[in-house]
């Protein structure tokens, strides 16, 4: 591991100034992803700026009814927060389906959004990877492809985004507050995470030095009836093959409003706008659910190892919406 300086500034503005002014500097929050990457040699910062102590670790409601989540709120606390459980069950469920109890206790809200792909070639320095070392090629395209993306891929990268939380936040249309050297700005989800294109080394639209300070959840009554469903190779403590975050409103058998996002399919959490469009105004039936999912997956590009993701995504969305419809009917 490369030697590094460790600093803990008292103010966010001085943390931003430090990182923005030093290409070798990196923020560290919980560190559950970054420390591992430093051990693996994937990341080699020369200076670590610890921001846990200067970012909010509280969930607060604004007068406009927006739930503001400080970037340092641990994943476990966010999942257990009473207002999140009540108003955004999809978010609690997504968080609880990710990692382990120990990791959720440390991993932060901001860091979860910025965690990097678990593509096995990205994590192995012996292999070429355009995300880790631009221009070296992509070993995953021709290699072990079970976890590869099927939507929005490029010839340069087929990695998937690993976060469950980000999939729920993308369905909910959360806003990310960012502090940079020029001041504050807001980035909407989806919109934070990029598709790989010809710059797969860039996971997000954030510039070096920009710091996530909070995530805001706008009022969304629809989300009270929402769920996260994750399919993986073992029952717990594994990344998604496919996941679905959905919120659904059904009135007299007709879908009046719906939000859908997929995980495990793309370089970014995938908001399924086409599926939502198909569903609005349609009967809440198995047939509609499948048609909507198939419309979203129509552009999928697959290889022999990950072709299963397309029917799996269709089945998973249908099952999630079926569950939400049944929940609605019981009320």
């Amino acid at each position: 591991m490369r030697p590094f300086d460790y600093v803990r500034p008292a103010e966010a503005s001085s943390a931003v100034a430090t990182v923005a002014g030093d290409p070798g500097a990196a923020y560290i929050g919980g560190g559950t992803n970054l420390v591992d990457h430093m051990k693996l040699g994937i990341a080699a910062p020369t200076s670590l700026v610890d921001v846990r102590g200067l970012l909010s670790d509280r969930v607060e409601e604004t007068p406009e009814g927006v739930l503001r989540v400080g970037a340092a709120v641990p994943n476990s606390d966010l999942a257990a927060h009473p207002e999140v459980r009540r108003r955004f069950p999809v978010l609690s469920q997504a968080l609880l389906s990710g990692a382990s109890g120990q990791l959720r206790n440390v991993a932060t809200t901001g860091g979860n959004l910025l965690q990097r792909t678990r593509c096995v070639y990205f994590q192995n320095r012996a292999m070429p990877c355009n995300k880790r070392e631009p221009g070296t090629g992509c070993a995953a395209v021709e290699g072990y492809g079970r976890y590869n993306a099927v939507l929005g891929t490029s010839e340069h990268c087929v990695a998937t985004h690993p976060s469950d939380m980000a999939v729920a936040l993308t369905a909910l249309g959360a806003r990310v507050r960012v502090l940079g050297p020029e001041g504050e700005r807001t980035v909407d989800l989806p919109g934070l995470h990029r598709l790989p294109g010809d710059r797969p080394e860039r996971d997000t639209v954030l510039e070096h030095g920009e710091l996530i300070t909070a995530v805001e959840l706008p009022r969304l009554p629809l989300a009270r009836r929402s769920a996260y469903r994750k399919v993986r190779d073992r029952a717990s403590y594994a990344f998604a093959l496919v996941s679905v975050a959905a919120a659904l409103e059904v009135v007299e058998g007709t879908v009046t409003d719906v939000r859908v996002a997929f995980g495990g399919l793309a370089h970014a959490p995938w908001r399924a706008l086409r599926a939502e469009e198909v569903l609005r105004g349609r009967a809440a039936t198995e047939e509609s659910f499948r048609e909507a999912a198939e419309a979203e997956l129509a552009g999928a590009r697959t290889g022999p190892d990950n072709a299963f993701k397309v029917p799996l995504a269709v089945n998973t969305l249908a099952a999630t919406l079926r569950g939400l419809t049944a929940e609605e009917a019981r009320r």
Partner: protein
Amino acid sequence: MEATITLRVDGEKHELTVDTRTTLLDALRDRLGVTSPKKGCDHGQCGACTVLVEGRRVLSCLTFAVAQEEAEVTTAAGLAGEGELHPVARAFVDNDGFQCGYCTPGQVCSAVGMLREAAEGWPSHVSGDLEGPVRLDDEEIRERMSGNLCRCGAYANIVAAIREAAE
């Protein structure tokens, strides 16, 4: 680069100078001789290094010692009282919740942290109702302990031990 830090471990205060690259796990084991947290994978995948920081279970291999300045760290060894085992450790012994024992200190710390989470009403991935009371049946225990691997496969007895300790 070096830094001088204070670590509070199992009720004792230690001042030490560490290379900033030292993880909490390595500081505990190699610098302070506190060997109850074990190094398994060293990548946050096995749970053998689990300790309690401010009462919360965390992985000591995935945090730098410099980031734990002044934090209260409790290892499995520190859970024991005067001449007697912590009730969770006692339950592991009574239920044969191990074979080789290498993962056990991490399992015990994780179980202690988990029982506190459950007591606070935190739901899990397998909880049917996010807002309902927590009932620690075997399915809940297994899910909540999924971050601790046991390569001997003593899971059945680990679950029994934790079930007993929870009662």
